[in-house]
């Protein structure tokens, strides 16, 4: 694990409120891992790691002061990374169903596993994407109902999106990237608990990606 500075390379707008932020630095990480980025907020902020145009990148949706700082103000960030576990998809053809906040991870998985990607965005996407996207709940729901033939599914977006996919796709190989408030990202603070069939687990050390039968 590293605890060091990263510097901002580019900011690329995806839709209304979500931006890809690329870094100048290169470091090793596995698909599914995340980073905790320092901002003026009292806690560091977790983001899923991915790639964009050969750079390490996160995709950040503006929520409050911390995300606003990362996208619009900060140039150099203290951060610790990589955190959490590698996502190892089962064999076969998979699809990543993601909101724009997961575009950089989707991109990485797409390149590595040639899996399909479906981006579901609330608002118009302003960026040319190398994979399919739909805008709005209605189109998203329709689309999901047609996706029955994949060997695995990774859903990463809002709770609403995750629940919709879970209740419409029956495969046991549906994986979900969970979000809970994170204080530390390293298993110390116990803020990111999820209650699973095997008892209490932590998104930061046991996840962030869980298979549906765990939940």
């Amino acid at each position, binding site marked *: *694990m590293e*605890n060091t500075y990263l510097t901002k390379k580019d900011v690329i707008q995806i839709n209304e409120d979500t931006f890809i932020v690329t870094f100048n630095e290169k470091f090793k990480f596995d698909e599914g891992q995340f980073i905790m980025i*320092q901002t003026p*907020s*009292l*806690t*560091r902020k977790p983001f899923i790691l991915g790639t964009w145009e050969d750079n390490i990148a996160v995709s950040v949706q503006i929520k409050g002061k911390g995300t606003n700082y990362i996208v619009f103000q900060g140039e150099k960030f*203290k951060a*610790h990374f990589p955190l959490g576990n590698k996502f190892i998809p089962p064999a076969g053809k998979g699809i990543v169903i993601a909101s724009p906040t997961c575009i950089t991870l989707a991109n990485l998985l797409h390149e590595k596993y040639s899996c399909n990607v479906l981006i579901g965005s609330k608002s118009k996407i302003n960026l040319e994407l190398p994979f399919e996207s739909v805008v709005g709940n209605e189109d998203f729901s329709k689309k999901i109902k047609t996706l029955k033939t994949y060997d695995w599914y990774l859903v990463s977006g809002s709770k609403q999106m995750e629940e919709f996919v879970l209740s419409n796709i029956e495969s046991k190989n549906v994986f979900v990237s969970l979000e*809970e*408030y*994170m*204080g*530390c990202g*390293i*298993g*110390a*603070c*116990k*803020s*990111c*608990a*999820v*209650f699973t069939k095997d*008892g*209490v687990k932590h998104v930061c050390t046991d996840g962030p990606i869980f298979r549906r039968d765990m939940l």
Partner: protein
Amino acid sequence: MNLNPPLVIASGPGGSGEYLSLINPKYVGAYTLKTITLNPKSGNKTKRMENSENYIINSIGLENPGIEYVISNIEKFVLKETKTILSLGGDSKDEYIKIAEKIAPYAKKFEAIEFNFSCPNVKKGGLSILSDINEWQEILENVRKILPDSFLIAKLSIEGNFVEVLSKKVKEFGWNGLTLINCVRGLLIKDGKIVMGGLSGPILKPIALRAIYEVRKVLKDIYIIASGGIYTKKDVDDFLLVGANAISIGSALFKDPQVVEELGKYLKGVER
């Protein structure tokens, strides 16, 4: 207790040593483990944490594996890199006494044993162990007997009774130190949802300073670990000025673990 530097990692935010992967142990005087209870606890339901401008609110609910697990894995819990302070908690007099008895054979492995009498996130009829002051005094008395050689620290906050009144009792029963203060109960409404828990971070500083000032006024020779909103050298100076012997880093770990190195270095240079 002799800590060099007089900087302690607070119970809870530090987990059971996880932050040693991010900070240099040279600058940690002692590392307090997350509070352990008699029985394992899976903690409160989520959301367990939220931040506001000048505080963090948490309701972890003392998630911990229980004392038996700690004893069975004692070498994992006694940290190699720094001195370790064990933190123990409970919901009733019996639990406090039993846990003290269980740990007694291993007590020497810890630099000190801290008893958390102030967690705002567990309940005994809605309140903490301090709601019955007589019962609480029996705990002080019994634990002192069960752990005669340990450096015993009571962790208090400002609710339940006046902190200086409670602190005098702690001293009366022969305990060695105080950690002041634990989180204060708070409530935040974010996006229309109520988040309840204990407040930590900058909001606690003026309250903790006052608590320590008042306690030091009545107790000249008890060891006081300051806890509450310590992030900067000015914070360290202020807490030393009102009479703290050591300072503790809790929420600041979440902002920047390097604060430990910065303040640890600073404290190594300060005449204590």
